[in-house]
C-alpha cells in the first residue's frame, strides 16, 4: 500500500483536505492499527500541526480540546467526573496517545468515552465552526467528513454521573457493553431528566430513551426502577460478535443497568 502523509498548519486546512480516500490522524491508536493491518480503504493520512490538548472551564461547561489524551483528562481536576471513564481506556501507553476527538469516531467495541459524552449531552465543535449535540454527531458520524475541534461537557452535580464498563477479560479487556447515566436529582429521591447511554450496543453509542422516560420522577429503589429495566434495550441494536451474542447482551443489559443505578446495593 502506498500512503501519503499530508501535514497542514491548521485544523481548518486539514478539514478541507479530507476526502473519500483520506483519514485524519488523531492519537493514532485506531488509524495506525488499520495501516499496520493493510486497510485498503484509504491512501492519504491527513495531519494538523494545530493540536489542542487544553481543558478549560467555559460558562456552564468544560471545554476539552479534541487533541487531549485520556492521560490529559486524568490530569485535569475539572474533569474528575470523567476520570472513571478515561481510566478504563486501554493501558497507560494507550492513554498517553488516544485522544478525546478520536474516541468520538471509534467503532464498537471501542468508544467508551463517547458513550459517557452522549449521556452527559456534550456538544461537539467541528473545525468548520459547526456545533452539534453528541446525539446528532453520532447519528451522522458514518457520513461525516470533518474534524472535531473540541467537545464541551456540561457540569454535573456530585454523584449524578455514573459509568460502568463490562468486559469479559478483567481488568483490561475491551467493552462487551458500557453504560453511562446522568441522574439529576439523585440526592433528592426524585429523578429529573435522566440520560442513559449504552456503548457497544449498536453501531454507535445509543441512548436508552424508554428507560430514561420510565425513571423520570422516580427514585432509585428496586421497585421504582423495575419499569425502566424492562424497556432498557428498546431502540438499541446490539450485535452478535466475538465478545457476546445479541441475545446475551439483551439478557444482561438490565442486570448491569440495575447495578449501575443501585450502586453498591445489589
Amino acid at each position, binding site marked *: 500500500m502506498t500512503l501519503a502523509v499530508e501535514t497542514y498548519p491548521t485544523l481548518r486546512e486539514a478539514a478541507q483536505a479530507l476526502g473519500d480516500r483520506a483519514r485524519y490522524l488523531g492519537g493514532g491508536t485506531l488509524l495506525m492499527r488499520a495501516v499496520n493491518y493493510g486497510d485498503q480503504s484509504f491512501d492519504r493520512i491527513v495531519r494538523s500541526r494545530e493540536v489542542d490538548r487544553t481543558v478549560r472551564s467555559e460558562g456552564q461547561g468544560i471545554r476539552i480540546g479534541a487533541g487531549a489524551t485520556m492521560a490529559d483528562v486524568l490530569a485535569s481536576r475539572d474533569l474528575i467526573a470523567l476520570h472513571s471513564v478515561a481510566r478504563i481506556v486501554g493501558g*497507560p*501507553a494507550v492513554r498517553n496517545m488516544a485522544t478525546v476527538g478520536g474516541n468520538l469516531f471509534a467503532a464498537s467495541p471501542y468508544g467508551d468515552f463517547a458513550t459517557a459524552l452522549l449521556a452527559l449531552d456534550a456538544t461537539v465543535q467541528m473545525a468548520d465552526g459547526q456545533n452539534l449535540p453528541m446525539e446528532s454527531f453520532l447519528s451522522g458520524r458514518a457520513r461525516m467528513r470533518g474534524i472535531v475541534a473540541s467537545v464541551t461537557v456540561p457540569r454535573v452535580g456530585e454523584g449524578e454521573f455514573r459509568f460502568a464498563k463490562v468486559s469479559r477479560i478483567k481488568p483490561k479487556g475491551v467493552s462487551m457493553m458500557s453504560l453511562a447515566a446522568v441522574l439529576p436529582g439523585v440526592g433528592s429521591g426524585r429523578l429529573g431528566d435522566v440520560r442513559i447511554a449504552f456503548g457497544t450496543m449498536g453501531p454507535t453509542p445509543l441512548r436508552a430513551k424508554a428507560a430514561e422516560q420510565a425513571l423520570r420522577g422516580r427514585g432509585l429503589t428496586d421497585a421504582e426502577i423495575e419499569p425502566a429495566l424492562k424497556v432498557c434495550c428498546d431502540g438499541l441494536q446490539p450485535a452478535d460478535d466475538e465478545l457476546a451474542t445479541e441475545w446475551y447482551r439483551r439478557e444482561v443489559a438490565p442486570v448491569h443497568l440495575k447495578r449501575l443505578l443501585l450502586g453498591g446495593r445489589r
Partner: protein
Amino acid sequence: MARTPLTFTLNDAETGVFVVPGSNLLDVLRRGAGDLTPKQGCAQGTCGSCTVLIDGVPHLSCLTLAETVEGRRIDTTGGLAGGPDLHPLQQAVMEGFAAQCGFCTAGMLMAAKALLDRTPNPTRDEVIEAISGNLCRCTGYEPIVDAILTASARMQGRTA
C-alpha cells in the same frame, strides 16, 4: 517511492533517517535506525512489547506515525545500560528471573523506567498499573513486579 527525511534524538544520539510515508515508529527504529530492542508483538496496541518513551512518556511505537516524532526524544531499552553497566532495572530483571522468553522485556523495562522516573518509590499497586498495558505470557508477572520494586529500592539506596 518518495521517502521523507526524519530527525529525532534516539537515546542521546541525534538520528536521521528516510522513512516511507505512513511507516510506524517501530519499523523506523528497527529498520531505519537499527535499534532492534523494541519488539513487534501484535501491531495493534494490545501487547505493549513495542513501548518506547517519547519525550519521557510511554508510547506504543507500532501505533505512532513516524512523521509525528520529528525533533522529539525517543528512549528505548537500547539506551538503558551505561556501557557495560546494566541499568538497575535490567540488573534486577536478570537476577530475579523476571524474563523468560524475553519478548515482553524491552517494553516492560520502558514502562517501568517511565514509572520510576516519575515515581521513584512506587507502591506495588502503582507498579502493577504501570505495566498493565504490557502482556507477559511466561512469568505470571510477579517476578517482574518484584524486580521493578527491587530496582526502585536500589536506586533509592534501600534494600528491597
